[in-house]
């Protein structure tokens, strides 16, 4: 049944999953203090809704999602809000970000949401629950889950993929999740399939996880599965190859569908979810428990007891590592995420966040320092390894010389940054970093260009307004002058003819004509701007704010020409 379709390239790095996969899942002790960054997800940071000194219970919402793409943050222990401050967070820059810090009381007093029966509850309430519970993708991308389910509205989705491939070396968090909580994961998949309208569920799992596979099979062959999940479930075992767990690669391998360039799996009717996310989703709905903990792999040769541990979000990493018996002096690199796509941390005093799926405390022997970059010898190994069918060495030349246009031409944005090219490069070129840097730089330039364009539009609006004000002032002055003149003319009717009026009449006539044309043009511009704005607000693409500014500018221009026209007409009438 396991039809194996394929994506190009791929590599077989040493798996090194043994150490952490042998141990059963452990529960981390309750931390005495947690640090919760306001941004643990893709999108806008959440806004705090608590004040220092306030008592919170576990599961209480302490920061509310802002804007379209964002997620709530919940207290992961009960206690007192200590402060809102800048604290170091796990980020490749090693920088700080605003975090809420909670001093625990050791009680772990919960505040749960009401439990929902997802078969009986309507869809909107379920989506809202996911949003309330701050559920995000736990595979590492941390995209808010409810937004993915909402994509049903404009895409028809037929398949829900449970991405249990977990292809990156060292990481076993999904493996242990499946082994320990297979029923939860399957039920979560059922919930998600219901929400997105999928007709079937496909669980994709690599063949190096026999125990997880057995747990899943045991559960799927159980009797009560039909009552729980309404759609058929397929279990597809694929051979181990990195990066099968990449969304696009997995879609290709399981369904032989190819996600279009710059598209998402929903474009081919597929939604992918990670087992951890599904478990978090079902817990949010069935048990009313917001996302306050996650399963994290602690591994690396510098640990005496590697394994997986379920830890509260915000727990300091050093506490977890100490628990796993880290031989501190032996740690040469501390990595969050996998060794291929993760990043190095410069300290261990960082909180566990929603994205922390794995911590590797590596010794020098297992992950030696990056050797110096050598010249590219065009050996083509990277091309053979690239799972996106790109030409990394061409991209390398162009990104290195900052020729961004060329890099985009060679499909830089189809790179999934999996690091397979880095892994095989005999010259130790950090290719993926070149590509990340180039992408960031291109995005930054686009952003700056958009901002400059917006500033220009605002400047134009201001100019148009100033002009309109001047025109209106002029019109009023003309009207006053005309009134005065009319009065005086009435008084001395027929006595004297003003010669100056003749000239003004001639120019006035001309003005009226050109101003009429200008008025028509301004009206057309307003209509055009209105249309553009209406289209943008309908489809949701385009910068609505910027279009509003443009519309306002057009309206100002119209008003200005109208007042000028009025003034000109006034003069003309005066003259007659």
């Amino acid at each position: 049944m396991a039809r194996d379709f394929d994506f190009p390239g791929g590599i077989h790095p040493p798996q090194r999953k043994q150490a952490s996969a042998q141990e059963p899942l452990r529960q981390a002790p309750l931390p005495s203090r947690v640090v919760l960054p306001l941004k643990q997800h893709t999108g806008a940071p959440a806004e705090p809704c608590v004040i220092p000194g306030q008592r919170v219970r576990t599961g209480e919402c302490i920061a509310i999602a802002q804007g379209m793409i964002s997620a709530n943050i919940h207290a992961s222990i009960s206690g007192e809000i200590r402060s809102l401050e800048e604290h170091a967070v796990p980020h490749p820059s090693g920088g700080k970000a605003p975090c809420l810090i909670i001093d625990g009381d050791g009680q772990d007093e919960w505040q749960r949401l009401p439990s929902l029966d997802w078969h009986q509850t309507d869809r909107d309430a379920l989506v809202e629950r996911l949003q309330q519970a701050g559920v995000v993708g736990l595979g590492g991308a941390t995209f808010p889950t409810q937004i993915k389910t909402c994509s049903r509205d404009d895409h028809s989705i037929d398949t829900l993929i449970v991405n249990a491939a977990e292809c990156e070396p060292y990481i076993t968090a999904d493996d242990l999740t499946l082994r320990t909580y297979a029923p939860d994961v399957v039920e979560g998949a059922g919930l998600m399939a219901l929400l997105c309208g999928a007709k079937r569920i496909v669980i994709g799992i690599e063949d190096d996880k026999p125990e997880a596979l057995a747990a899943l099979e045991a559960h799927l062959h159980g009797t009560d599965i039909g009552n729980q999940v309404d759609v058929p479930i397929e279990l597809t075992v694929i051979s181990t190859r990195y990066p099968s767990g990449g969304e696009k690669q997995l879609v290709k391998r399981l369904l032989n569908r190819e996600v279009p360039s710059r598209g998402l799996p929903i474009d081919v009717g597929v939604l992918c979810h990670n087992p951890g996310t599904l478990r978090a989703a079902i817990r949010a709905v069935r048990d009313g428990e917001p996302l306050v903990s996650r399963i994290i792999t602690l591994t690396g040769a510098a640990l005496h007891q590697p394994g997986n541990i379920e830890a509260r979000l915000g727990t300091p990493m050093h506490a977890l590592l100490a628990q796993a018996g880290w031989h501190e002096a032996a740690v040469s690199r501390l990595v969050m995420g996998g060794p291929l796509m993760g990043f190095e941390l410069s300290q261990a005093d960082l909180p566990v966040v929603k994205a922390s799926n794995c911590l590797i405390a590596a010794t020098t022997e297992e992950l030696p320092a990056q050797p110096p970059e050598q010249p590219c010898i065009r050996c083509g190994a990277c091309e053979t390894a690239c799972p996106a069918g790109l030409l990394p060495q061409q991209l390398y030349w162009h990104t290195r010389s900052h020729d961004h246009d060329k890099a985009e031409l060679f499909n830089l944005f189809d790179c999934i940054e999996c690091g397979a090219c880095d892994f095989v490069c005999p010259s130790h070129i950090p290719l993926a970093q070149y590509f990340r840097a180039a992408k960031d730089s291109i995005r930054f330039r686009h952003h700056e260009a958009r901002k400059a364009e917006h500033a220009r539009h605002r400047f134009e609006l201001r100019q148009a307004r100033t002009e309109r004000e001047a025109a209106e002032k002029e019109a009023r002055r003309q009207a006053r002058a005309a009134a005065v003149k009319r009065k005086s003319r009435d008084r001395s009717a027929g006595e004297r003819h003003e010669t100056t009026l003749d000239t003004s009449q001639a120019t006035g006539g001309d003005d009226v004509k050109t101003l009429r044309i200008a008025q028509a043009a301004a009206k057309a511009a307003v209509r055009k701007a209105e249309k553009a704005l209406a289209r943008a607000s309908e489809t949701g693409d385009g910068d609505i704010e910027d279009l509003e500014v443009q519309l306002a500018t057009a309206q100002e221009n119209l008003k200005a020409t109208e007042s000028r026209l009025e003034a000109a007409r006034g003069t003309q009438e005066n003259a007659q």
Partner: protein
Amino acid sequence: MLDFVIIDNGIVLAIVALASLSLVFGALLGFAGERFRVDDDPIVEHIDALLPQTQCGQCGYPGCKPYAKAISEGEAINKCPPGGDSTIRDLADLLGREVRPLDGEAEDMPKVAYIREDECIGCTKCIQACPVDAILGAARHMHTVIIDECTGCDLCVDPCPVDCIDMVPRPSTLDDWQWPFPAGPGQRTPAPGLIATDRASATQGAVHG
């Protein structure tokens, strides 16, 4: 005798032929130039697109568009401090001119205006000065800057009678962070690495905290 000279002398014939050819093509070119003339010079738009649109007037022109127009008429390309060297390079590329060092001081980092609100007397002078309407407020009420709209042109600083406007570095978040480019061949790409002192303090925290 005369027609003998004209017809048989190769040189004269050549000259006549060339002259008539150049007349014909000259006329054609002249006609085409008139017929297909572009009224609006599109180069101004292209130049304007490269300018940073801060509308700061540091170039001596009232806004970016006028400066763009001036450049198209021969003004120097190195008078835009907010754009800095990269803008000069882009302009030089576009216009085929030479890259010249910036006339004036480059800004090292993007800035935004910040009004010390308790000192503001609500005179609206800065609102009038702002080229992009990025300052909110009404007469005799304190004003405030919309950070997202502020271009950092500092045109509002001088008009303020109580000197309550500062130019501060634009606040940056981790989202603004960009992956750095690796150092290049022959170099090691710097990795963060654990810092020994951090490690020590971290353990202490673990033990005592």
